[in-house]
């Protein structure tokens, strides 16, 4: 069975991955183990979902630098890393030239067979400061969720809230002199409405927890998702500042994201009201 639009999307994805400004080896691998062939294969279902299942809308794309190091920093939305996949799809499908957003995966991922491999072949490395710095110095586009695993733990009723941010990302951005591009991700909580998290069960599989939905498995509903990208935050410093200085920078980024979430909520509500008004 061929999903609608998958064929043309495949060709488009191949073309866009070819246009990524990444130094590929003669076998089609980048120095971090990402591969052109695997990127197409792995990202095709996500890109299809981006276009046809969720119909993701991206606002403020011009804020993402076309080239050079940058750190996309946003909120987690939805019990699994759907948000990361959709941001990666957005950067690949909407930017010109396309860019590969490289996430910093939770450490448990590296221990899982297949998943660890899939992550590496699609340019997603374990969330180590060494990796982040190296990618930034290589002028790559980093994707960071400073809420960490606690961010994906959010329940349905907490879906628009922000939990505590880690501070490491600000130190890294300062050390690498990389601009922080804040973004808000909206709708993940509706697509995967977590009613509870099974911590014990998750730990059995080496994951921090497993999110449970009313239909048990965290399979997403076809809900409209929105990504709002804000203006880059340029921080000046060395990365060796006192904690309170760094905390102030973190707060600034968090406020920017909270502002984008509030704006995004208004847009979604207005859209929903319009949608309801137009309904026959």
């Amino acid at each position, binding site marked *: 069975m061929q999903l609608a639009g998958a064929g043309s999307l495949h060709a488009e994805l191949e073309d866009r991955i070819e246009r990524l400004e990444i130094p590929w080896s003669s076998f089609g691998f980048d120095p971090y*183990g990402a591969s052109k062939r695997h990127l197409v294969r792995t990202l095709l279902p996500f890109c299809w979902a981006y276009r046809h299942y969720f119909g993701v809308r991206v606002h403020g794309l011009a804020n993402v630098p076309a080239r050079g190091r940058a750190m996309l920093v946003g909120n987690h939305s939805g019990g699994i890393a759907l948000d990361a996949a959709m941001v990666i799809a957005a950067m690949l499908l909407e930017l010109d030239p396309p860019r590969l957003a490289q996430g910093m995966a939770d450490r448990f991922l590296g221990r899982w067979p297949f998943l660890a491999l899939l992550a590496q072949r699609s340019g997603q490395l*374990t969330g180590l400061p*060494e990796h982040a710095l*190296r990618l930034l110095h290589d002028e790559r586009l980093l994707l960071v969720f400073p809420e960490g695993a606690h961010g994906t733990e959010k329940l349905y009723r907490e879906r628009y809230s922000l939990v505590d941010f880690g501070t490491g990302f600000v130190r890294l951005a300062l050390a690498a002199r990389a601009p922080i591009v804040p973004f808000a991700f909206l709708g993940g909580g509706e697509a995967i409405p977590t009613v509870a998290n099974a911590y014990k069960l998750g730990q059995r599989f080496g994951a921090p927890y497993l999110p449970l939905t009313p239909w048990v498995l965290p399979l997403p509903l076809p809900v409209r998702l929105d990504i709002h990208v804000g203006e880059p935050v340029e921080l000046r410093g060395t990365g060796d500042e006192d904690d309170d200085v760094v905390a102030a920078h973190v707060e600034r980024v968090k406020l920017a994201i909270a502002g984008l979430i509030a704006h995004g909520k208004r847009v979604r509500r207005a859209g929903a009201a319009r949608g309801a008004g137009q309904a026959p």
Partner: protein
Amino acid sequence: MKILVTGVAGLVGQMLARQLCAAGHDVIGVDRRRFADVPAGLHLCHVDLRKRAAEEVFRHYRPEVVVHMATIGHLFAESEERYRVNLGGTRAVFEQCRLHGAAHAIFVGRHTYYGAGPDSPLYHTEDEPPLGLASYPELADLVAADLYAGSALWRMPDLVTTVLRVCYSLGPSGHGTLATLLKRRLVPAVLGFDPLAQLMHEADVVDAIATAIRARPRGVFNVCGPSPLPLSVLVRETGRRLVPIPEPLIAAALGRFGLPKLSRGALGHLKHSIVVDGSAFRRATGFVHTRDEVQAMTEFAAAFPARRPRPA
């Protein structure tokens, strides 16, 4: 220049001795093993580094540069002898360097020093501790020899010490850890994992050591060549077949069905990558590799064709 090479009968030792002799250096080779085709100009001393006879070699020749590569290290069955050779030998070499006024000592170590683990970063830098030791205690003697050699940097300030952590070599000789793993037609893999392997042509390894002799950099340096490749590509390009085995079964399968026997700790190297950052060595010495991964794999495969080639 008077250069003493320990472990000269090893593959890299022989190639290095030939290159140094050809360049007009006065080369003294030390090894317990046989060395069939001794190049003209090489003084071969058939002694054990840890015995008194070796002291006489240092005393008599008083080399200016000492290249120490008489260490044993492979992923396969290990012997007790390994511990004694790797640590006792390294200690003896540095002691003789100090006693007999050598100006420069080069320890040729391995990039497996860093170990392979799910949490370890891609691209290790020289300042990292050997974190992989916990999962692969069999490597302890190599790690200890590496760190011991490095301690000469502060213990013997008059001696310029260079510790090289060289990535896997591959080439027509079929020597080395990686080549030994690839020599059979079937190469085991852990299902669901495909680590990046970093390899350089064996002739480039020799060039790198020769470059270190010329440039005489002080410190610890990773040495690598081309960009790393997944193990699966390496196996495919050398005409071998990858046999992915689920992790719970792999311990039982190794050593049977035409698969090599590997120690338990070595399995980590089949799951996770060890990739090093060689930029410090390039900056310090200007070293550039001249043979790419394709050449290394092609020459290896030509010299060691898989026994049962696939029908065309």
